[in-house]
């Protein structure tokens, strides 16, 4: 007789109807939990492939493994973690885009390698590398150019993170307006899309952006 480990709830009318037979249900299904455990490549390899030192990799991995003991982050976890930094707004959309950008092999989960490669580019890469990565983030369908719709999605997600309580009050057209602004700046040939070359060229010419790149000093 197979032992039953489900709750026997009398309130479940399915049992009374006789349409749900617990006795023959296999319980082995319960134990087939997906215990995926991912181990990253050795530290030496990671050191070669990224621009982090050994100590930095150690700190990063410890933090990563603590949050995700199984060694991979799935999108839900990712969103949860990221949302804790932005309590006022809704960061789920932007977290989704980030996830897509980090998950380079498109397997639905971010492993430590993906994580570290991404961080290496952003934090230790050249300005061009960073701009490339940003472009990759914006290009949602990865076709090499950013359309206005894609940009609008990104913009909306960023504005969503602000939440409602802002000063001055958040207007509904703010994202759209911002997108227009962006395209005006970036779209050289006014063909309605921004290609990677246009993007990098325009960014390099923009003083603000270049100066803001110092944002990534001392992050780790």
């Amino acid at each position, binding site marked *: 007789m197979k032992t039953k480990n489900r709750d026997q709830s009398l309130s479940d009318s399915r049992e009374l109807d006789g349409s749900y037979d617990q006795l023959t249900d296999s319980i082995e299904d319960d134990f087939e939990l997906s215990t995926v455990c991912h181990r990253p490549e050795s530290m030496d390899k990671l050191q070669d492939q990224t621009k982090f030192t050994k100590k930095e990799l150690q700190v990063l991995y410890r933090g990563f493994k603590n949050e995700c003991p199984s060694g991979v982050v799935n999108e839900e976890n990712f969103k949860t973690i990221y949302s804790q930094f932005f309590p006022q707004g809704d960061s789920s959309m932007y977290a989704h885009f980030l996830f897509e950008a980090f998950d380079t092999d498109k397997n639905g989960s971010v492993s430590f390698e993906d994580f570290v490669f991404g961080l290496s580019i952003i934090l230790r890469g050249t300005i061009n590398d*960073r701009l490339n*990565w940003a472009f990759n*983030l914006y290009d949602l369908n990865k076709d090499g150019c950013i359309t206005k719709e894609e940009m609008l999605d990104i913009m909306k997600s960023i504005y969503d993170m602000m939440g409602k309580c802002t000063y001055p009050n958040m207007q509904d057209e703010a994202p759209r307006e911002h997108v227009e602004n*962006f395209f005006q700046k*970036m779209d050289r040939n006014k063909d309605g899309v921004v290609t990677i070359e246009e993007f990098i060229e325009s*960014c390099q010419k923009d003083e603000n952006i270049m100066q803001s790149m110092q944002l990534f000093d001392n*992050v780790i």
Partner: protein
Amino acid sequence: MAAGVATWLPFARAAAVGWLPLARKTMPRPPVDKSSRSDEILFVNVSGQRFQTWKNTLDRYPDTLLGSSEKEFFFNEDTQEYFFDRDPEMFRHILNFYRTGKLHYPRHECVQAFDEELAFYGIVPEIIGDCCMEEYRDRKKENQERLAEDTEAGEATDTPLPDSATSRERLWRAFENPHTSTMALVFYYVTGFFIAVSVIANVVETVPCRPLKGTVKELPCGEKYSLAFFCMDTACVLIFTFEYLMRLFAAPCRCKFARSVMSVIDVVAIMPYYIGLVMPENEDVSGAFVTLRVFRVFRIFKFSRHSQGLRILGYTLKSCASELGFLLFSLTMAIIIFATVMFYAEKGTKGSSFTSIPASFWYTIVTMTTLGYGDMVPNTIAGKIFGSICSLSGVLVIALPVPVIVSNFSRIYHQNQRADKMRAQQKVRMARIRMAKKGTANAFLQFKEDGGLGDPDSNSSALCLKNRSAFENQHHHLLHCLEKTTNHEFTDEMAYSEMCLTESVGYRTSRSTSLSSQQGALNNGCCPRRARRRAAMRLANSTVSVSRGSGQELDTLPVKSTNLPLQTRSSLNARAVDIKLNCSDRDFTAAIISIPTPPSNTPDESPPSSPAIPGILRNTRATAYLQDAVKISSL
């Protein structure tokens, strides 16, 4: 923010690369972190067991002791580690909380000890993980209930009444607790006797007696000796009425008393008599009158005041109301079903007793409860089949709720037993504690006798001073200072009890515990409460006069336990640091005594002399003031 994700902050900051090209303004400069970036390992020594952890791990929860700068207070420069003089077993769980973000409750630990540890480390118990929260809550509730019971048991009924009690309060106390005075006890037994008499009279009334001379018909005794029974009935009712009126008069809240179960029973017991008096000897009404007499049997319920077991039973039934309701409901359902079936099965039979469905109810009930009188039996085959199914199912349906009721009864019964046992044991414990206290007080008096209070330089005192620890010397010096301040001296019990004999019996407990009578006189006048507290303080320095009975112990001790902030514990702990073992031959040992005391009813004033209490017994280790307990330990 959950500090666990603090380690992901660099990632979040890196992700800001997505905002860079879109920003309309320049990004602000990043903060320069001058502190050493590299994570370091901290050593935490908890009562000898060394734990090591990353500093970042502890920093995750900055509002706790370990995560904030508060831990610097425990840093030991010599060994370069943080030292905590706490339970290492518990610390394991605390540290795991930092590591995993989930706090687990170890099931084998006492829930109060666990709570204390959490309070020490600044962790709120609410964050216990879901896996352990149930268990924790259950244990905590159980503990609190038990403590509440104990305080209830220790309170009220056993303590002697204050002088200022009105006669009404005294009367009420006498009714509620018959053991307080002989009068009450007598009254208790008298009422019990009369209840029994009344019930027996009701029963015997109906027994057939020999017929009167000259007649043939047998009469029930009630009619034969109607006058005698009437007199007995009147007497009983008079007593009951008197008792009821007295209780009503004495009750502190008359409306509440009038609505209580016992008073309703009392009224129902005596009403029929009065109604019978009032009603005329009318043929029509006498039928109703006879019915009323049935209510006289309710007098038997008055016994529940005399019997605790009955009360427990009643309470059990009340608490099992839902199970009983379910039993009733399911039985009703089954009865109706089976009665219907049996009726239709037996419909065809000639001369069948199953004349209607309600008539079949009787058969169904008798069968389901496996009584089987046999006055109604099915004749058809179908009827017999259904009848057997009926009896089988009856057993099952009745057997289901019964264990629940039984376990409820058992639980309540044991609780009651425990409460009684506690009360009995309390007295013994108090006596033992008093003995121990007498010892310490004697120490000081002995000290004085030896001339220790003389000039410290003189030779005579050198001998006795040699054998005492620095702590004792200082303590005795303190007591001496007090004597000099008040210009009175501490005396021993015998001298005091002589003084006491001259005082009246009903004096306040404070006076009886004070040795220096003037100190008592100073405080006793205005406020009995304050006097009680001072008595509690003096308790430490004086012998407790045993003459007043155990109640005063419970009186004075509770006052000592107040809601002192827990921080005082560390100061009290620190005090015991410089204790040396006393080699004096007058040493006597007393076991570690813990007195759980009821929470103080006077939270407004805190005893100022609490730091003096550690000096009560010789060689105290640690005296801890917990919210509800006074632990006095000595070697």
